[in-house]
């Protein structure tokens, strides 16, 4: 934990020669609905280095899932995606299917929350987890079968040779989630994006899953974007944390900085509202209200309406875009409150 290289601390300008694996700038996702334009993701920027894990923390409507789908180009046609995301210098946003297929599966892979709907019910698990790989490589059926067994073994499925022939409904929830991870690994990606992959699982199986992901990171140097609402999972898994609210990034920093000293009132509110396994809490400090469901364009801070501190600043929080304030090593919070830290310039756009 102490040996974290500071060069990859988020927000800080990347050191020369240490270009991040993933660089996201001003990523914006909007939808047109009957109720007007919904701004699901609003100008989100971050960097992620090889082998590191970024936990994207947020509640419903925070834009955390919309952001991950945008990185893989998985949005429907009704979504408009703007901004830039480069994987090793290769643009991911607004590219055509051919360019996208050059990265999807082989360089970026995704693990979804609901493995039962992400797996095809008609095909044996072994066959479908290597279908993409077989298509790309043109491998023989035998080679694909052997690779499927190898992958299932690697993610800890016992009797992999037999289980590869099973159908998804014959797998338990934990095994299905392992199969999804095996499928993600098939193309040996540099980056795995996992959207709440453990939310539906029992804690015992969740612990196994987190351990598996951490082992894979150590062995292969895979970078991980892990989308979750569970701060306890974040404490276990994250190198870096990005807190999102109402489509915006409200705080970004290393795990230890954010847990030790959360600067944004929303981050602090989240931490105070979580019950603790390790000690009794007399009463939880709940945040009044609920997260915005369909956020529109907001001039000020998206959290202003629920923020206990906003009234201190008049209507500034609701009207003005909050400045970026620096916290501990590379940590930044987007907040009007001076105590969040000194104001620093927004990072330069582009590379």
């Amino acid at each position, binding site marked *: 934990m102490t040996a974290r290289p500071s060069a990859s601390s988020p927000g800080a300008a990347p050191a020369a020669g240490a270009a991040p694996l993933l660089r996201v700038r001003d990523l914006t996702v909007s939808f047109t609905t009957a109720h007007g334009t919904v701004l699901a993701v609003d100008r989100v920027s971050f960097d992620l280095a090889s082998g590191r894990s970024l936990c994207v923390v947020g509640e419903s409507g925070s834009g955390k899932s919309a952001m991950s789908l945008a990185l893989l180009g998985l949005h429907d046609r009704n979504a408009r995606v703007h901004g830039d995301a480069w994987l090793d210098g290769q643009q991911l946003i607004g590219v055509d299917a051919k360019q996208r297929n050059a990265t999807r599966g082989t360089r970026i892979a995704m693990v979804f929350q609901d493995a039962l709907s992400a797996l095809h019910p008609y095909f044996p698990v072994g066959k479908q987890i290597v279908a993409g790989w077989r298509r790309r490589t043109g491998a023989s059926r035998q080679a694909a079968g052997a690779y499927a067994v190898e992958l299932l073994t690697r993610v800890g499925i016992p009797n992999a040779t037999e289980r590869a022939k099973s159908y998804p409904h014959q797998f338990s929830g934990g095994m299905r989630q392992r199969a999804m991870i095996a499928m993600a690994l098939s193309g040996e990606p540099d980056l795995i994006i996992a959207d709440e992959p453990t939310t539906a699982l029992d*804690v*015992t199986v969740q612990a196994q899953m987190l351990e598996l992901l951490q082992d894979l990171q150590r062995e292969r140097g895979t970078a991980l974007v892990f989308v979750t*609402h569970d701060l306890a999972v974040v*404490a276990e898994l994250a190198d870096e944390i990005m807190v999102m609210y109402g489509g915006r990034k409200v705080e970004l920093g290393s795990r230890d900085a954010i847990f030790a000293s959360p600067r944004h009132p929303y981050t602090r509110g989240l931490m105070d*509202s979580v*019950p*603790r396994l390790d000690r009794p809490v007399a009463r939880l400090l709940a945040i009044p209200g609920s997260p915005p469901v369909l956020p529109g364009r907001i001039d000020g801070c998206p959290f202003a309406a629920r923020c206990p501190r906003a009234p201190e600043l008049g209507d500034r929080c609701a009207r003005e875009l909050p400045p970026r304030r620096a916290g501990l090593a590379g940590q930044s919070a987007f907040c009007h409150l001076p105590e969040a830290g000194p104001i620093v310039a927004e990072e330069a756009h582009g590379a």
Partner: protein
Amino acid sequence: MAPEPAQPLLELVDVHKQFTARRAVFASGGEQIVRAVDGVSFRLARGETLGLVGETGCGKTTTGRLITRLLTPDSGEVRFDGQDIGRLSKRELKPFRTRIQMVFQDPLDSLNPRRDVGRTVAMPLRLLGHDAASAVKRVEELFERVGLSRMHLSRFPHELSGGQRQRVGIARALATDPDLIVCDEPVSALDVSVQAQVINLLQDLQQQLGLAYVFIGHDLAVVRQICDRIAVMYLGRIMEIAARDALYERPQHPYTQALLSAAPIPDPQLQQARRRRKLTGEPPSPIDPPPGCRFHTRCWKAQEVCRVVEPPGLAVGESVQVACHFPEEHES
């Protein structure tokens, strides 16, 4: 914690419930028996909260449904206020229905989408013979109590946020002035910031109204926050039942230890420093639970005796109970 009075509000004595599972369409063989609840006993005092925790398929939800008599036990007793309600007919159950209520996990599934929520909450009152005017007055009181305003009365479930919907679910449960509410994962579907509001509300209501709760949950931190005592279930049986802090700080059953150490805590330093007790695999099928102690297939302490002899069931009325041949001994 309330001292246990002579007569508990609720007492389960060796309750069993089986389901018949049909084999897959093309599979050979006949019906299979799922022993969902397989000899569960516990007591609950007035005003107390008992947590039921365990992995998927451990029987916690079935236990909750047996208490509310949405299911009928195969054997054993469900004593409410001294009377066994396990065998009562629909008609005989009627006076108990008002006293035992339930709050479900997803209020979007448990509220009528085509009825405004004011009428949903008024429904049990009308059934109890309130006239329209007095029902409306009572619903307004209930809404205020759960932190909703009068303007929410005419809303439909889809027009409310998740937290507001769960408040409606709680108001409906309170309408009949119950003594006991079975809460089945009432905050699991809610956002973190809203979850805390609903937990606080449940605690406030308990204090104001002297309610008892059976709280079914899989999030061990939430359960610690709200429960006085906790029963840990595994494959239809209670493995350990203890007062809250005793269970979390001095767990005796290996399964309790494993479950607690699998749940991460939201503090990186503490989380890194914790000693882990890893469980491999998932619970065996309740269709054919292992002989002896049913946890022995995943237990690191298992000896020959565990594979053969089932640990004695929990004696009702002890403060700490553990169904294990080799429970952890803690210095007191």
